[in-house]
């Protein structure tokens, strides 16, 4: 992939633009399906296309800003946003983002570049990849463990209470009460979570993977409110991150609008998927996709190590590693998306079939009995007609 302005921005052909849009679509589907941002797929995907890690993160966090704004508005209408909690988290998350942006830009410069693309970006790419691998491995393994536990018939044991119990035993005043979420949380815990969320959002663009579980497991916030509040938080974090990265010249607005082209449709498809796919399957599919994304990023790591001179490797192999990494990422995301799409299309067609049957019932004479086929479980629901 050719770059312009030194190593900063890639030159976009129709093919690469299409690939970025597909990344956006797959990321959007996964995002709607999982209920978190699709950055875990889009950021490494862009890196595989030759986009420097820091630009991929900057462009993606900018994309997240607009997307979260749309999502937060919707959740706000449903009363799922605790603005007070969001504001408390925002303050410290900004510090986290500033730390992340600072580390990323310093590493980008130290990795051979002057900050504006005249050199390499191996150090920042390696750093982003390692944080990505570390965090997402924990997330994927937890999800798969939960799914397997559900499969063993222990699904209703619920999430582990160890963290919540431990936190509740600590006496860390001052405490604040958040009425919409109906929780009382220590300021110190709030600050720690905000900082971690901001740092991860600024580093790899996946703050939601920390923010949502923390709100559910540590604060005890209802799931819907946690998701809505995280989107509200993501809107501000996205805006702050976008401004910071744009100020440093690390936002490629072309990539951002191409991502939108795919992701906003993908979110609808993914969200529809959650209604027609079993909970346990959602966890297995999600966990597996994330794990494969981690593996894909792991495959690219030797290239950065070689570029930094930490290992000896034939530079000609870079292409193989990158291709393998890219193939694995697209295979993982693509397969996951196909599974979701298959279920969505099947449910959609069955719904249309039911609607057709309902119209017949409405038109039917009032003395017959009509059977409706219930789509997912293939069961029969009787609708008696007087």
């Amino acid at each position, binding site marked *: 992939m050719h770059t312009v302005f030194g190593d900063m921005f890639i030159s976009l052909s129709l093919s690469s633009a299409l690939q970025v849009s597909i990344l956006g679509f797959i990321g959007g589907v996964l995002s709607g399906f999982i209920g978190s941002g699709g950055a875990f797929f889009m950021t490494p995907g862009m890196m595989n296309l030759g986009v420097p890690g820091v630009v991929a993160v900057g462009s993606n966090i900018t994309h997240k800003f607009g997307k979260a704004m749309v999502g937060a508005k919707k959740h706000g209408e449903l009363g799922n946003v605790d603005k007070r909690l969001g504001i408390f988290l925002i303050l410290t998350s900004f510090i986290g983002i500033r730390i992340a942006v600072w580390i990323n830009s310093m590493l980008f410069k130290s990795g051979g570049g002057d900050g504006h693309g005249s050199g390499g970006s191996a150090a920042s790419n390696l750093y982003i990849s390692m944080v990505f691998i570390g965090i997402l491995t924990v997330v994927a393994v937890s999800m798969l463990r939960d799914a397997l536990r559900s499969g063993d018939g222990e699904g209703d044991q*619920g999430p582990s209470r160890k963290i919540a119990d431990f936190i509740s035993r600590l006496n860390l005043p001052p405490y604040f009460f958040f009425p919409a979420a*109906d929780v009382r949380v220590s300021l110190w815990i709030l600050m720690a979570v905000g900082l971690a969320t901001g740092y991860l959002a600024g580093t790899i663009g996946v703050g939601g993977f920390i923010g949502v579980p923390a709100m559910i497991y540590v604060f005890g916030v209802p799931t819907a409110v946690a998701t809505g509040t995280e989107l509200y938080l993501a809107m501000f974090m996205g805006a702050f991150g976008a401004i910071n990265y744009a100020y440093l*010249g690390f936002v*490629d607005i072309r990539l951002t*609008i191409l991502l939108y082209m795919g992701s*906003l449709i993908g979110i609808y498809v993914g969200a529809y998927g959650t209604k027609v796919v079993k909970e346990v399957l959602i966890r297995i599919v999600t966990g597996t996709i994330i794990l494969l994304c981690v593996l894909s990023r792991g495959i690219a790591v030797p290239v950065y190590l070689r570029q930094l001179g930490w290992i000896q490797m034939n530079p000609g192999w870079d292409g193989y590693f990158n291709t393998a990494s890219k193939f694995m990422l697209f295979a993982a995301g693509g397969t996951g998306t196909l599974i979701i799409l298959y279920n969505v299309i099947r449910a959609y067609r069955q719904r249309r079939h039911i609607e057709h049957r*309902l119209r017949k019932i409405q038109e039917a004479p009032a003395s017959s009995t009509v059977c409706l086929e219930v789509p997912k479980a293939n069961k029969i*629901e*009787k609708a008696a007609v007087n």
Partner: protein
Amino acid sequence: MTQVICISSGISSKARRLAESVAEKLGYPRHSREELLEAAIAEGIQVSKLETATIKPHIFNERLGLEREYYRAFITDYLCKRALEGGMVYHGRSAHLLFPGIMHVLKVRVVEDESTQINDVMQQIRVDRTKAQKYLLEVESDRERWVRSLYGVSWQDAAYYDVVLNLGHISPENAAAVLANMAQLPDFQMTPSSKRAMENLMLGSKARVMLARDERTFRANVKVRADSNGITVTYLPQDAGLADVIPEVLEPLEGEREIRATMATTNILWIQEVFDTASEAFHQVVEIATKWNAAVELLQFFSENGEEPEADFEGQEQTLNDGSLQASFSRECIGGIEDEDTQTVCDDKGLRATQETLARLGRSGGGRTIFGTGEQIVKSIDRTVPYSLVVVGNICVSKGHAARLRMVRQLQSYLSGRIKAPIVSAEDLKTQYLFSKRDILRMIGYLGLVALIFVLVFTHQTWVLKFLSGTEWTSKVLAAGVVFLFIPVIAYLYSNVTRSLMKLIRME
């Protein structure tokens, strides 16, 4: 005369004495929270586990969520039965919420000054003042969580009480005299319609308990509502296999009411005065319900004077009796008492027919009638039921078009801050949730703007990238500012295109 007095309090020995004294004065049995807990434990409900899980800062798991529903239904059934037997006095921490929507229940909140409460605690558990104060705070906090978990509201919300008594200023015996006198007011007498509402509440709770007891259905997340037209059970798609089982489990109740099982993932509340299955609004609501796999709950709403939904007059929930509606518009002059003989019996304004049609379509979520203000609507809503949409249709139909529109807007505005769901008028349904010609125009307009932005950006890539990677601080600030302003615009435009597209293929 039959009265039900519910006294809600925190830790207070005086409140207990007050309840005993009121019961003695009125000659009613006194029931307490301890009695309920004993009965629930004897039933096999894991109350202590439920309480512990509620007050700990973690999310409920699925099993405890079902146990909570079981407990709530069980205590409602238990108390309704006793209340219908001839009146009662109940004392507990969430007493005022036990009979949602039953207007003749006298709901009392008892408060005491903090020092009296601390002294009570010091005597009860033999601790010093500091520990007693801390204990009191913890208990109040636990109580708040418990009530919110069970009923979805704050126990401190004064709107749910009829009267607040400060026992720091009045003795329990004198307070009991006040309550005993107050209970004689016409507002707190059981009327035929409020009796029917309580019977429906009991029947719905009984049905829920039966489903919780049966091994085939105890794991199912179901919601039950009973009205004069039948018992409606809504269940989730993953429990689709229960469609045939639910009527079997509830067979003992079938003689009393028709059983309807509706598969739904969410609920749509439709508030309207006159229902008509041939109306455009009906078809639109059904279309949305089918798309969302939602049950449609009908709420027939009569605003008494048709002037202000918040107007200060006595409200009353009524249910239908054999399809006929008790149109009681003269409650002000009779102080809330409804005498069936003096009422004008008229048609039910399409409620039953609409319910039946929805049942045929597999979308029925039950139906009921409410007289009064927006406040009565809010009080009657079960906060534990997930609503995705509230539709406000025609109300005050006797008024002119402009007045009706104003009333709908006022009701929408009143409900919007109180119900966690989008509140839309029936007239806005099409524009907001269904695809119309206006959407085509809007989609084309937004799509045109998006295409223009794409063309401009991609035909001027070098210039755009140069602008974004400026090295001067002024150009950096400008780039950051432009990104900050540009992104919301493109996100807004493109999200509208996507939304319209999804509406077009009916997949939003």
